[in-house]
Every structure is written in C-alpha cells, then in structure tokens.
C-alpha cells in the first residue's frame, strides 16, 4: 500500500514536471534524439497526443522504434514548419480516413516540403506519418505519391514502385478492355 502510494506520488510529480516542459524528446530507431514542441506534437499526431496525455512520454527520449532518424527528422521538421505557418487547426480536422471531406490541397509550404524529399525519404515519411497518426502529413505525402502516379502508364508506375508485372498478356488485354475509357490515348 505504502509503496503504491509512493509510486503514485512519484508518478504525479513526474507528470507535473513533464507538463512544465514544452517540448517532447523523440528517439529514432537508430537512437538519435529530436525535440519537438509538445503543443505541435499533440496537435498533429494522435499517437503522440495519446502518449502525452497518458504520461508515457519519456524525458530521455520516447522510443519510436519503427521510425528511422531521417524520417523522424522530417516529421519534426514538418511539425515545426506547421507550427510556424498555420495558425488554425482547421487543416488537421480534415480527416482523411474516409474521404468524406474532400482532400484539402496542400499548402504551398507543404508542397515544397514533400517535393524536396527523395523517393525513399518520401515513402519512409508516409510510414512514419501513418505510424504516428499524423493525418495531415499522411494526407500530404500520399497526395504527393498519387501525383507521382498521375498520367503515368502502368509500365511507368511499375518502374516507380518497383513492381513486377505478373499479368499474362491475355489478362492485361482483358483489363485494358474493361478500363478502356482510361486509355484513350494509346
């Protein structure tokens, strides 16, 4: 009993101490530490918001084992830029999980943000955004990838995504017939 109580108190003080800090420290899979504003983290990431609310943020670096340092750096970068450039929470609430609300076009800075990323970095960032429940970032990155596919032939898409064509000729012909309207120009 006594022990429990003491533990509870310690927990309590820890939480208070945490509440005082206005940043959280995140640790990538390869052990690098990144600081990000607590407010931005909580606002942009449902997962981090949950961790902050639940007190499971570690002062010495909250382990995010699924996220490499490059992707995490981009995440943090995004959070910082977001905090600087967008005053309202309107963007975040435009949930993408089922596209009832039409996708809100990326802002200029968001476009630049994803445009500068390499193919690898972009894909890693999508995964990080998904893992952290960052809907807007997921939105922006997925939108970027869908733009990469836009206007591309199946062959070109295979190249981008490194997919092997496992269709037989007949199958491919059949499906092209079915979707003939989309291939008007060949």
């Amino acid at each position, binding site marked *: 009993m006594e022990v429990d109580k003491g533990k509870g108190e310690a927990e309590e003080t820890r939480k208070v101490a945490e509440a005082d800090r206005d940043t959280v420290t995140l640790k990538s899979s390869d052990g690098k530490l990144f600081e990000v504003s607590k407010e931005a983290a909580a606002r942009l990431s*449902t*997962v981090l*918001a*949950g961790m902050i609310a639940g007190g499971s943020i570690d002062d010495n670096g909250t382990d995010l084992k*699924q996220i490499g340092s490059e992707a995490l750096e981009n995440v943090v970068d995004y959070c910082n830029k977001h905090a600087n450039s967008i005053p309202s929470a309107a963007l975040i609430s435009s*949930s*993408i*999980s*089922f*596209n*009832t609300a*039409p*996708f809100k076009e990326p802002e200029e800075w968001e476009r630049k943000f994803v445009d500068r990323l390499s*193919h*690898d970095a972009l*894909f*890693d960032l*999508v*995964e990080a*955004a*998904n*893992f*952290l*429940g*960052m*809907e807007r970032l*997921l*939105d922006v990155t*997925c*939108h970027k*990838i*869908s733009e990469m*596919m*836009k*206007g*591309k*032939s*199946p062959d070109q*898409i*295979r190249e981008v*995504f*490194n*997919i*092997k*064509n*496992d*269709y037989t000729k007949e*199958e*491919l012909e059949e*499906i*092209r017939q*079915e*979707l*003939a*309207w*989309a*291939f*008007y*120009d*060949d």
Partner: protein
Amino acid sequence: MKCRSDSTGGGDDRRIPVAAPTGDGGSGETSKKRRTEEPSSSSSGAGECSSTPASVQVPPRPTQREQLGPDAREGEGEQPPVDADAGGEGEQERVPDLGEDLLFEVLMRAEARTLASAACVSRGWRQLARDERLWEAACVREWANLGFSEQMLRMIVLSFGGFRRLYVQHIRPVQRRAAGMPPGQRRGQLPVRLGRDQVQVSLSLLSTSFFLSMPNAPPPEKDKDNDKDKNGGGQCG
C-alpha cells in the same frame, strides 16, 4: 467483412462506410501489426479495412505481401513472404515499398484514370484498385466541381450499382458521344473530363441499366422516368 466490395453491386455496404472503417476491432488478421502498438491511431481507417479481405479472398496476390519484403518494419506477421508464383520479386533493388494499407491511402487520393492505370500494374494492385471506395472518392472529388453534391452522387450511384461500375460501363459511351465517335471505333482521342450534362447522361445510363437488370424488370416504358429516379433513388436502395 465487406469492405472490399469487389463487385459492382456493393451499394448497401457502402452506405455505412463512415462508421465501418473506424472499427479497429473488425479489421481482423491482416490488419497491421503496428496498429496494435498504437491503438489511438485513427489514421488510415479505410486502409486498414481494406487490407482485411486481402487474405480472405484473393488467391492470386502473393506479390503484394512479398513486396513488403524490404520493409522489415511491417512484414513480420501472418504472411511471411512465401513465394507462390511470383518468386524472386522481393529481392530486387531496394526500393521502399508501401504496404497495402498505405498504397490504399495513396490511391484514395488518385484520379479515376490513375486508378485504372494502377489496376494494370499487377494482380495485387488490381485487387486493391477494385475497391469501391477508391472510385467513389475519385468520382466525388472530380464531379463535385461540376456542381453535383456528394450526397446526391452517393445516393444515386450507390443505389444503382456503384462507382466502379459507373466508370467501367457508363463513362466511355458518353465520352464517345461527346467526341462524336461511332461506337465501333476503337482508338482515338476521348475527352477525359466530362461536363455536367455528360455526367447526367452517365448517371442516367447507370440507373437505366440498373432497372433493366432488376429481376422483375419493369416494363420498358419505365425508362422514361429515369430523371425522376435520380431524385427518388434512395427508395430503391
């Protein structure tokens, strides 16, 4: 689960999609492992949902999971990259690969034409691109600009056979007509974008074909009521 109504007739399932994808619980065996670690994530509900039937219904899709090979983070679970008929694929140059769920998220933001291209990429992609929600999203996005309300589009299209079916069966004839092209001709430029009237025609074709294919098909003269059906489509659903 019915998430992937790979048919065209999934109308009724699609009426409750807003609720459906949020249920983490229902996503079953294929849903991502990572989600067990982050229960609070509300992100790709749709994607999660989509992955479920993958293992259920799709025999020819080993590729999809296999391509996860390079991505050690999420490949671990229920489907080790067994090779079935597409062996060796996972060992190509390392290009990061999105899982099925994330690819779905990407396709959710793609245009209908891109969906069509994607369907031609591989069997796995085709299976994914059959998902009615993708076509719905594309359709609603593209046509919202023409003044069709989402709600109306959903009501009509879902009642009468679904968005994918609409694209597959009822867009091309309208495109041809718009281009003044005889039905027999195979190649040539067709306009990609439809105008408002053309969309109306497509919707009419869709509803007409729906009525004609009803088991106790109404007498042909009923077709004339098509325009009214647009308004009253809900009652048929």
